[in-house]
């Protein structure tokens, strides 16, 4: 479609954006920290590595991510099987809830987990490692359900039946037939979950007990609370290297998933027939509703409840200014800020992300493609901090301006946009264009009635994701949102960290608003993916 030269030119836009707002700030952060006063200060590496605290945090980070991944797999794999094999009432709801959970702001998830577990009354469940694991489970269960569930549904069940006919008992069928075919999908989704939980920030920051920290939280504490810039930079380097390794593993595992064959085009779903199948499906419905809807319900109960029973007190309080206390502005301002930033971030992410998708949809080497499709390898905390110290002096001075917030949020959202748009660009295969031509569509009509509507749909889905991610972004925003421009997640974090019922109530009220907005945006656009639209 485009000449090579035009394609190269188009690359310039995303490259320039990433160079200016991603590579430059991160490098600048490292140089500023390690190269003060015109010479390299590398002794700080020795300091960090000889500190036993560093090694215990590193161990905790790895351990926590591994435990979260294993827990998520244990819970989600049976569910993936149910989704892959049966059609039943409530399935769409569970799938929608899982998508909403995946994009739910981490701060809200932390609040929801602590609220719902407190209601359960099990001691020790509402903070520390158990609470963090629950929050990670809530956030990531959808990744496994969707990825493994989709893949599993495309594996022909007849192969297992063939094994049964050859005399294999159920456990051998799973071990020798199902598992070898399913393993690539399980490994790929495990890698994604491990990556996400390895770089988890908001959840660990809020739910972790005093002294509990993973690498991301440690970077934040070093820099923000202890003002120890050099050690923060060393930690950021360690984090970047580890994440890069994980990304390589993850892209390798996902790539293996794409080169597979013998999958069904249309999954063969059946209604549960036997009593056993019905009870499995019923158990799945109950468990997944409890896991995916329970925390949300708890947030709403806390938001509307209070010491004097049901009321709108918490919501009313959002309108009043908290000047001089927690926020400089009224919480309702935070809602407005969030929406404005998220819209701006969505526009930026859509433009850059779809340019990347467009160029990739032509001829791109697998390596280029995986680099652009991967979620950002640098922690959001590092990114936010880098942006903050880089653009505070001429020639680009954003100090006192909110412009960096949507840019940071867009950076986090761009890989998701590219991921959503790329398949739709590729799905407009030559075949479909040919079909349009044989039906009498001119090339212009083909573009107008075939290409465009299909791409618009992908863009809408991408916009929903970008918007949800921007609304919930916390790690980078926490550095950039000064007191005058708090976003909803920042406000929730501040309220949660303050004592008193009314602060807690306001945190829950804000969380409920963010839940509703996120759910509307994601469910609304996700529907577009499948529902038929007219010309």
């Amino acid at each position, binding site marked *: 479609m485009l000449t090579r030269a035009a394609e190269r030119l188009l690359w310039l836009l995303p490259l320039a954006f990433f160079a200016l707002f991603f590579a430059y700030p991160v490098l600048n952060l490292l140089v500023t920290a390690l190269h003060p006063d015109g010479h390299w200060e590398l002794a700080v590496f020795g300091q960090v590595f000889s500190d036993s605290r560093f090694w215990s945090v590193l161990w905790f980070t790895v351990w926590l991510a591994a435990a979260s991944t294993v827990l998520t797999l244990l819970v989600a794999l049976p569910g993936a099987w149910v989704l892959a094999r049966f059609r039943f009432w409530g399935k769409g709801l569970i799938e929608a809830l899982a998508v909403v959970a995946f994009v739910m702001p981490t701060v809200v998830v932390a609040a929801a987990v602590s609220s719902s577990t407190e209601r359960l009354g099990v001691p020790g469940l509402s903070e520390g490692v158990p609470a963090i694991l629950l929050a990670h489970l809530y956030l990531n269960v959808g990744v496994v359900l969707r990825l493994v569930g989709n893949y599993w549904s495309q594996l022909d069940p007849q192969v297992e039946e063939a094994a049964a006919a050859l005399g294999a008992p159920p456990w051998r069928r799973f071990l020798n037939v199902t598992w070898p075919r399913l393993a690539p999908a399980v490994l790929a989704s495990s890698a994604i979950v491990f990556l996400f939980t390895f770089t988890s920030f908001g959840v660990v920051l809020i739910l972790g007990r005093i002294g509990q920290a993973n690498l991301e939280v440690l970077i934040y504490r070093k820099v923000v609370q202890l003002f120890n810039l050099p050690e923060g930079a060393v930690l950021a380097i360690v984090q970047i290297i580890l994440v890069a390794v994980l990304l390589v593993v993850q892209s390798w595992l996902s790539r293996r998933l794409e080169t597979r064959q013998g999958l069904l085009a249309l999954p063969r779903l059946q209604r549960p027939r036997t009593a056993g199948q019905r009870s499995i499906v019923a158990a799945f419905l109950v468990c997944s509703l409890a896991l995916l809807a329970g925390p949300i319900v708890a947030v709403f109960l806390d938001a509307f409840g209070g010491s004097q029973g049901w009321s709108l007190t918490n919501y009313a309080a959002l309108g009043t200014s908290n000047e001089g206390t927690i926020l400089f502005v009224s919480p309702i301002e935070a809602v407005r800020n969030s929406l404005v930033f998220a819209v701006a971030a969505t526009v930026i992410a859509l433009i850059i992300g779809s340019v990347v998708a467009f160029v990739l949809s032509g001829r791109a080497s697998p390596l280029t493609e995986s680099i652009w499709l991967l979620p950002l390898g640098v922690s959001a905390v590092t990114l936010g901090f880098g942006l903050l110290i880089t653009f505070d002096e001429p020639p680009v001075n954003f100090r006192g301006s909110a412009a960096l917030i949507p840019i940071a949020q867009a950076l986090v959202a761009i890989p998701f946009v590219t991921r959503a748009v790329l398949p739709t660009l590729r799905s407009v295969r030559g075949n*479909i264009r040919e*079909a*349009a*031509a044989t*039906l009498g569509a001119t090339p212009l009509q083909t573009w107008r009635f075939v290409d465009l*509507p299909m791409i618009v749909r992908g863009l809408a889905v991408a916009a929903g994701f970008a918007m949800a991610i921007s609304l919930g972004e916390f790690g980078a925003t926490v550095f950039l949102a000064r007191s005058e421009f708090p976003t909803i997640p920042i406000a929730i974090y501040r309220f949660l960290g303050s004592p008193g019922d009314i602060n807690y109530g306001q945190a829950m009220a804000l969380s409920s608003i963010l839940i509703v907005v996120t759910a509307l945006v994601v469910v609304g656009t996700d529907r577009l993916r499948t529902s*038929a639209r*007219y010309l």
Partner: protein
Amino acid sequence: MSELEIRHLHVVYDDEPVVKDVSLRVPAGGRLAILGPSGSGKSSILRAIAGLVPSRGEVLLAGSSLAGVPTHRRDVGLMFQDNALFTHLNVVDNVGFGLRMRGATRSRARVQAQRFLELVGLEHKREAAVTDLSGGEQQRVALARTLAPGPAVVLLDEPVGALDRALREELLVAMTQVFDELRTTVVMVTHDQSEAFEIGRDVAVMRDGRISVAGAAAQVWANPQDSWTARFLGLNNVMEPGQPLHAALGCVPGVTTLLRPSLSRVADAGDARAARVLTGVVEWSRFRGGLYRAALSELSVGGSPVPGARVEVWSDRELEQGPAIAFTIADDDLVPLND
């Protein structure tokens, strides 16, 4: 409905000739089935007629050449092997697409499309997403979409290929009815001979980019021309010169000859000594949907044994195993072949 003619068509993919000098003619309202194994170049002929691949030679529709006419102005309907449905449109809008492209308003296109949905029996799914349909339903949508704009000729690429047997039968019956009703000019390609003979009034058999035999369906069946075609049609009794049975049956010397498998049974074994009577013992017999196929061995012709020879016979009754049974060989049971 218009006459379609192809003259000396050549298609080359990546320096590899896939269609070599093919000439065919389908009269207005006629139905041609092109039958051949996969990779024989059948689909390329359709793509060349639709103008989707560059080709040499002539394609004439209603007497005028299509050279230089872009696909969207050729007025040919092509039903793709994988359907190529528009996943962003629902059923009725898929079917109405071609009408819209010809300038119909959306509401008009939907009204017209409705007729074709009824024709393929899918009127109850008009608002469904095409991705929610079964394989058979998707193929019926593809068929309705191809027919709706009323193209001068309809090209079908393995139209029931991906379906199971029952659905295949159902759709084939539905299709022939629709084509009869609309008097559509049809070119279909398939690798399945029962489909070819069911849809095609004329059948052309293709091998390695060339037509090996073409003509009225019954004629192609009766006279498959060469041994490859005969075997491809499932006619396996090909006798080459020099084989004992070839001589015993008195075939023309030096001419490869096909013995048709549907032979008349002789009730009275006493006739077995007559010169044109073949006797043998049933080695195995299988029921193949409507008729039995059996292998006869220990053959003798006119009472004299033909050692090592074997033939296949088709019968509408099961042939009993055990004692030898006898068949008469009529003149037209022996078909000379060209190789």
